């Protein structure tokens, strides 16, 4: 049974960042920290505690899953677990991005943005 992805909307900013990072490719914990940090220009650097709280919640919601296979390129990370986007996660991410696009593109939003941008 398909769950309506919209029950998960709106996404928290950190969830959005994490799903975006996984949409590109499967990543391990430290890879996620690095990608999110880079993507937000260093504004959001996760500590391990908060990182895994988010991961735990997204796992529970079925938006992400542990990846079975490990990319061969990673030779040293014996114990590293990789995470991937689930089908539901992908749909939720798409729905959230659509919501944001609508929000950003709305004429009222644009007018406001112009007013407050100095």
């Amino acid at each position: 049974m398909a769950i309506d992805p919209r029950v998960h909307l709106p996404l928290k900013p950190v969830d959005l960042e994490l799903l975006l990072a996984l949409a590109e490719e499967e990543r391990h914990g430290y890879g996620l920290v690095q990608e999110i940090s880079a993507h937000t220009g260093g504004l959001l650097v996760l500590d391990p505690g908060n990182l895994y709280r988010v991961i735990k919640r997204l796992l529970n919601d079925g938006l992400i899953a542990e990846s079975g296979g490990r990319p061969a390129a990673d030779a040293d990370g014996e114990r590293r677990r990789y995470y991937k986007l689930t089908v539901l996660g992908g749909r939720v991410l798409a729905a959230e991005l659509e919501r944001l696009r609508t929000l950003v593109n709305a004429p009222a939003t644009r007018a406001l943005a112009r007013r407050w941008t100095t």
Partner: protein
Amino acid sequence: MDDMSTCPPALFRILRALFPRAFRDAFGEEMEEVFTAQLREATARGVPAVLGLWLRTLTGMSSAAWHERRGSTAPEPRAPSGMRWGVVRHTIRRLAAAPAFTLTAVATMALCMGVNLTIFAAVESILLRPLPFPDSGRLVTIYNTYPRANVMDDGASVANYYERRGRVAAFEALALYKTDAVIVGETGSTEREFVMRVSPEFFSVLGVAPTLGRAFREEDTAPGAGSVVVLTEPYWRQQLSGDRNAVGRTLRVNGTPYVIVGVLPREFAFLSSQARLFLPYVSAAQDRQSVRRHSGSSSQMIARLAGGVSLEEAQSQIDNHNAVFERDNPQRQMIADAGFRSVVVPLHRKYVASIRPVLVLLQAGAIMLLAIGIVNVGNLFLIRAGSRAREFAVRRAIGARGSDIVAAVVGETLLLTVLAAALGVAVAYGGITFLGDLGAARLPLGSRISLNATSIGGAAAVALASGILLGLAVAAWHLRDAAGDALRSGSRAATTGRQAQRTRHAVLVAQIALSFILLAGASLLVGGVRNLMRITPGFRSAQLLTGQVSLPFVRYRTGASVQSFLERLTTAVRATPGISAFGIATNVPLSGNAMKSAAAVVGKPLRRGESPRGVYSYGVAGEYFQAMEIPLIEGRYLTAADAASGARVCVVDEEFARRYWPSGGAIGQRLFPGGTPGAADEAFTVVGVVAAVKQASLAENGRIGAVYYPYSDRFDRAIYLVTRTTLAPDALQADLRRAVRSVDPELPLNNLKSMERRIDDSLVAQRSPAVLASVFSAVALLLTALGTYGVLSYAVSQRRREIGIRIAVGARPAQVQAQFVAVGLRLVAIGLAVGIAGAWASGRVLRAQLPAIPLTPIAALAVAAVVMTLICLAASLLPSRRAAAIVPTEVLARD
């Protein structure tokens, strides 16, 4: 920082432990991996990045753990790093607004952390830091012990070395060494140098190779072989100006040219050896025979365990090896009766064994001091918390969450402790200098005491952990204090919650108890040292000057040449004004050497299974007894005529006489040096009994016994000169040197010290802990006084209104004052009651380590209790008087 990047520090594990178990099971390992990677990256970027990471991790992890435990759905990372600076700035402003509080808290913690860091630096440098050799964990030493003959460590013999090397599979290599002193240089400019004589494998056992030239070879150790020498880097740099072509040059050692064959690496240091030159260990063929395997004593054996071999395995192989060699030993029964065994122990552990208990005790004391400091600062926070309860209550009422308050408080305590830790490092640098002044360099490995990354990392971890702990404790207090309560009870300066007061009092009691334990410990140690100093060494130590010369074999080959030297020396010294008696001995009390050997007494055969006992043996000449002022109990002293005539006579001490002739009559009895009787005409006749002297230390009470033989029968090239002076002994040092030089200009006089100085030096291991413990307890007392003052001042300030009313209705100021003093005294009484059990227990531990400590510590405990009470009384007087001085109209008018 290197080791930190490969495995996450303990602090991270602590943080991780804050999370619920299920969470840790699922993600614990991964969290560690992520942090390790973050730390590695931050380390590469530098110190600010590491600090930033820690700050972020501490706040992030603790708040995440908080939310996870409460099962809350609060959004995880809310504040990006830009906002955190606002929190830090706010915290700094808050602390700066209360400078007295901040200064007291930071100074307290800095002092306690500095003390801890100082002691930890010593513990780390001496006990923990590996010896500076590759794979040094595999280095062991093997020594012979004869416990039932009173000889605990007899080193290893030349024969042991030759019978073991290459034949015990557990050892990759083994080597023999001994320390010695030689005279180096050309006529007129000679110096005495400490040297080590080592077997060829010595350097390879340690895993060290010379940077120039070569190490020793087998042929270097043959009797009469070429004279070769290996230099340490400092000697090469200082004496040969770092000449790259030094190999092949010669050096005059004891008057003979020695060829320099090698120079050691700069960092080479063997334990605390002062040797700057290494010579091959030359031995005669007969000394290598197994019949001589028990004549060790002056040499030591080291070995490198083969890969994968355990200590137990090595020990059992040595035991088996010994069993094989003992089978053919004609004296095997006597050796077995003495409890003979060769013990294999790690080189490092054996070398620092004597100092380990003292260091561990000092570290325990320092940790206790830190606990007092943390408790004290905690109390300061609680006192301040009283005034902040309202602020937090208001903040909670308008929607601040528990985690915000935790973050605010923890941030504050963290900032304080981190600041204190930084200052503590500075305190520790001073502390290490102080350890140096106390004589730490004379301890085994004591000269390498220094702060390194491990110690500083440890200090940082302790600072962060105590900051978090303190913060959580204070925050917990705030959170439990429900919002409504605080608003109500804080509405006016009425009495605050009973709960809060009880907490403050309990904290103060804990502090008093801990300080009392420290104080009692310190007074026990001081009492122990005083007891030691009261012990008479058995001679008169004032106005006694002693020094040492080593007669080189090359110029003093025969007994006659030595005898003639001694006669000329005696004449020269006796002609020196200010010297009233002069004697010579092969050893002097408290020299750091305890030469023991057995003596077989005629008519007192060993019982079955009884072992010969080692007794102190001296060879003396001249007026040794008169110079030392060792009292004569019976008979006569040895005289110059005894030596000249070659009479086989000796003097024993009262312990020896009491052991063998308990009912008297020692004079005229006969004995043989060594464990077995010889031919009848070789026996020595006892002509005198003298008082016992303390040889190894003032604390010794082993009733060892001593025999004094004429020097000519107990010949040794290293001799002590003993002079009784009529002036201050140090004033005569130059004169004594001149006298020696007038007889032999090439012979240096070394180890020149007054006997009082020798006694002083022998007490380093007891006095330094006593001094340090006194410093600890002084700091602890100061902190306790501060704590008492703080708690009572706060109580007075909180109850001004009540006091005002009481005075208005007729209470006398004296009554008010007495009431607050009574509060202080009651807390002291409870604290002492709690502390006394701990003090008693610690007294027992101390006594096990330092036997001179009084058996029943009642006096020490009483002194400590009185001091403690007086200090707390003084600290409670000030606030009590302020209470008594309250003017009712002023207080009530302010309402």
